[in-house]
Structure formats: C-alpha cells, structure tokens
C-alpha cells in the first residue's frame, strides 16, 4: 500500500470524430498523486487534460488502462470514488436560476450534509459571496461564478479535489484568491489534481508537475526536476536580444491566444527568472499580460469549439 491517492495506469481514450474516424486522445497515461499534495497536469489546448479529469471523476469511461482514486477503481467502484471526490470542471457548473446560497444548499442536500444552511452560509462568507448570497447566480461576474463553483465543490469536504483549469479567464486578483484557497485546502490534507496551461500556475501551487503531450506524460516530477530537463540552450535565449520578427511573433501569438507557443513562452519565462532581477520581473509582468489576453481569448475560443454536448452527440 503506497500513499498514492490517485493512481493512473496506462489510461487510454479515443473519441469518434465526425467522419467516424477514431482519434486517440490518451495513449497510455501513467501518473500517481500522493496524499495531501497538489499535483499539476500541464498541457496545451486539446492535450487531454479535461478528458483525464473526467475519467478520474467517473464522468467518462476510459477505453483502456485503469485508474484508482482512494484505492477504488473509477470504473468498477464509481460510487465509492464519488463519495470521496469533487469535480470543478473547466467551465463553472452552477445553476444560474438559483441564488448562490440555493446552489450550495442543493449540493449540500444531495451530499447529505448534516446542517446544509450553516455550511452554505459559512462557504458564502469564506468565498466573499455573502453579499450576493440571495442573488441569482446568472447575475454573477465570471470571478464570482468561479468562486461559487469552487465553493460548491467543497461541500461535503472531499478527500480529493479535481480542479480543471480553475483560473482560466480570471483576473489576477481572482486568480490569487483561487490559489490561496487551493493552498489552504492542501494544507488541510485535501489532495488536489489541478490542470493548467500555465507553468506559472503549476509552479506556484504544485509540489509535482506532469506534462501531458500528445496523449502521454512526457515529463513528471518536482519543478526542480523538470527544470533539469530543460535544454541548456535556455541561457542563450535570455541573453540574446529578440529580433523584430520575434517580437512581432510574440505579439501576434499573444493576441491569438498563444496556443501553439504557450509551452515555449512559459518555459522562457521560467528561464528568465535566472537572469537579473529587473529583467525577471519585467519578463514575468509581460508574460502575465500576454497570458491574460491569451487566457481570455482561449476561454472564449474553447467555449465555442468545446460545446461538449455537441461532441457527445457524435459519440
């Protein structure tokens, strides 16, 4: 018996596309998450992060391989798993017709919590939503909706929390608040599997990071371990002044959401931190703005092309 709370072995999943062709999204994914740690699954758009999270949270069935959460098989003992986990999906899942408080009460009743009203009020307070408790959730801002969404996931104190891109589309302040919550939960012993497109986020929160690319985990370890994997060429990159073309590409990239360049940009940011202090903060600030734009655009883009029901219908 290891202290692995999540154990993923050779996980495979493919989807049937429009013309009936199967596309393999997960081609044999392996990783482990230990008790009480924050584990980040890093990957660009379409890498399969959400697919992995949906399988682990028993919403989707894998085609092959196996996964255990808290020692229970996600496919065969889904009920046991569900009692111990909570899913905060990529897009906030709140009931817009209900007030914030009613949303929390709903989940509390479904989870059979002893004192739903008390719990709901506590969570509203904790997430700065007490003032909006009696407003319908469809009048909330993006950040408030996400906070409510996360609060709903904490009802019933799950042992394992899945956070699928919890900060995409949030402003820096809201992002910090989410990070803070994640840290507090982890300190309290909750195991968190976080997905993100941003190394910075993984770096800020996670004890261990795995990079999902082309259906496989191509790197897995602590930040320090991962940095050792970086090609030595990184130093050169920082020192060399960017050419006009590179500046242009970077701007365009940032404007278009920086999807393709995301991995690259992020790693450069990491490398830049080893340079001078002034440059470092500049680089990070720039990076953050670029990401900000990127994040907003990505989230709307994904919203459009990932209308899940559409895809489900093809299944």
């Amino acid at each position, binding site marked *: 018996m290891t202290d692995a709370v999540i154990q993923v072995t050779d996980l495979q999943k493919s989807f049937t596309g429009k013309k009936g062709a199967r596309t393999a999204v997960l081609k044999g994914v392996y990783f482990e998450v230990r008790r009480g740690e924050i584990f980040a699954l890093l990957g660009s758009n379409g890498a399969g992060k959400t697919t992995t999270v949906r399988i682990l949270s028993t919403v989707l069935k894998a085609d092959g391989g196996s996964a255990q959460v808290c020692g229970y098989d996600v496919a065969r003992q889904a009920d046991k798993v*569900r009692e111990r986990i*909570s899913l905060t*999906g990529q897009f906030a899942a709140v*009931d817009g017709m209900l007030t914030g408080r*009613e949303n929390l009460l*709903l*989940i509390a009743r479904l989870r059979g919590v002893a004192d739903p009203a008390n719990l709901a009020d506590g969570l509203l307070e904790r997430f700065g939503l007490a003032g909006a408790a009696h407003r319908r959730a469809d009048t909330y801002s993006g950040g408030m909706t996400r906070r409510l969404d996360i609060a709903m996931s904490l009802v019933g104190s799950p042992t394992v929390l899945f956070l699928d891109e919890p900060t995409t589309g949030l402003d820096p302040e809201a992002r910090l608040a989410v990070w803070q919550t994640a840290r507090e939960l982890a300190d309290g012993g909750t195991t968190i599997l976080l997905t993100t497109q941003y190394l910075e986020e993984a770096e800020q929160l996670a004890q261990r990071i795995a990079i999902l690319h082309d259906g496989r985990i191509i790197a897995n370890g602590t930040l320090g371990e991962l940095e050792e994997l970086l090609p030595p060429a990184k130093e050169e990159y920082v020192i060399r002044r960017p050419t006009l073309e590179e500046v242009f590409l970077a701007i365009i990239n940032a404007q278009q959401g920086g999807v393709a360049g995301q991995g690259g940009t992020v790693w450069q940011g990491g490398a830049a931190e080893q340079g001078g202090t002034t440059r470092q903060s500049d680089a990070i600030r720039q990076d953050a703005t670029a990401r900000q734009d990127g994040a907003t655009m990505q989230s709307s883009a994904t919203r459009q092309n990932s209308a899940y029901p559409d895809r489900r219908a093809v*299944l």
Partner: protein
Amino acid sequence: MKTLHDTGVLFGRLMRHILRSPDTIITVAITPIAIMLLFVFVLGGAIETEGSYVNYLVPGILLIAIASGIAYTALRLFADVKNGLFERFQSMPIKRTSLLWAHVLTSLVSNAVSMVLIILVALAIGFRPSAGVLAWLAVAGILVLFTLALTWLAVIAGLTARSAEGSSAFSYPLVFLPFISSAFVPTTTMPAAVRLFAENQPVTSIVNTLRSLLGSQPVGSDIAIALAWCVAITVVAYLCAMRAYRRLG
C-alpha cells in the same frame, strides 16, 4: 431511499426553475388555448360533430398542449448537460436515475398545471363534460401516461441534441399529429389515405377515449389501443433514453 431523496431534491430544484419562469407554463398553455378559441369561434361552425364542438375539441387541445409542453423538458435537460451541471451531478454520489426522473417528474407536474389552465378556459367558453369522478380519474391517468410517453421522447432529445433549438424541434411533428387525427374533425370526412393514417396513429385512439370518458360514453376498444400506444412509446423511449444517457459518459 437514496434514489427517492435525490430525485426529490433535484425535482425541487427544477420546480424552482419553473416558478421563476412561469412563462414556460403560460406559453405552453396559451397556444393550445388560442387554437381552441379559433376553432370554437371561427372555424368550428363549419365542422359537424355530435354534440357541442367545444366538448368535441377539448381532448385534442390537451394533447397539443402536452406535445408542446415536453419541448421545455428537452430544453431544460439540454441546458443541464450543456452548462456542466449534469457533469457535476454525475461526479457526485447521486443515484444516476434520479437525474432523469427529476426532469420527468417536473414535466408531469408542469404539464398537469397547463392541463388545468386549459380546462378552466374551456369551461369558461362552454365545455360541459358529464364525466363522474371515476371517469375523470381515468382521463387524468391517460393524460399522465401520454405525458410520460412523450416526456421520455423529450429526454432522448435533450440528451442527444446539439443545440437548444434542436432539442425542442422534435416536438413540432408531435404538435402536428392531433391535426391529422379525430381531434378536430371526424376522420370520416378525410380522403382515404389520410384517413387510414389518422385512424391508426396514437392520437386518434387517445382522443376518442378521452372524449368518451368526458362525455360518459362507453370507451369501447379505443381505450385498449390508447393504453397500448402509451405504454409502448414509454417503454421504447425509456430504453432509448437510458442508452443515450449511458453514452454521455
């Protein structure tokens, strides 16, 4: 027990939706009421039926209301799937069937409210049923069965639709069915081919049964055919809905 509890909580949630957008019930009731007024006061004079035309018309109007009412069930279900709430529920220790049954119960209740509204308007414009308590219970039972059958069809649509419009579009042909049945005019006036269709589609047997019950007439073999249709549609739609449901995950 857990199933009942979960269904109850989720049903409460959906009923709250309906209370907060009562227009869904009103819209469902208003079109059939308009059709009823149109036929009774404008077109009905030219239609020859035994007894008063309102009495003749009411059963068909009720079925039209149900056929359009279940479009909202599909829409509500589609919205849940689309905005991720369904996924959240699926990752929680909730009995899976509760998720669907909550929508089905909501459909039954909201359609029942529409039925009551329509019957009240009908009474106001001269609908005079002679049915006793038992006959009324039978009428209610058949309406519930018909709603149940169409609701499970709506569940399939809600679970598999690609767009909100798509999820409710399936109800258009259902709304149209009563027009090609004995609901508005006796089938004997129709051309042979149409009549063949009209007399053998589910709506005619159901309308005839309701009409006989409301008018204290013997129901004959119609009631058996009506029940068979309702049960058959329910069973087939239920199985397909469950299959679509499993495919979600």
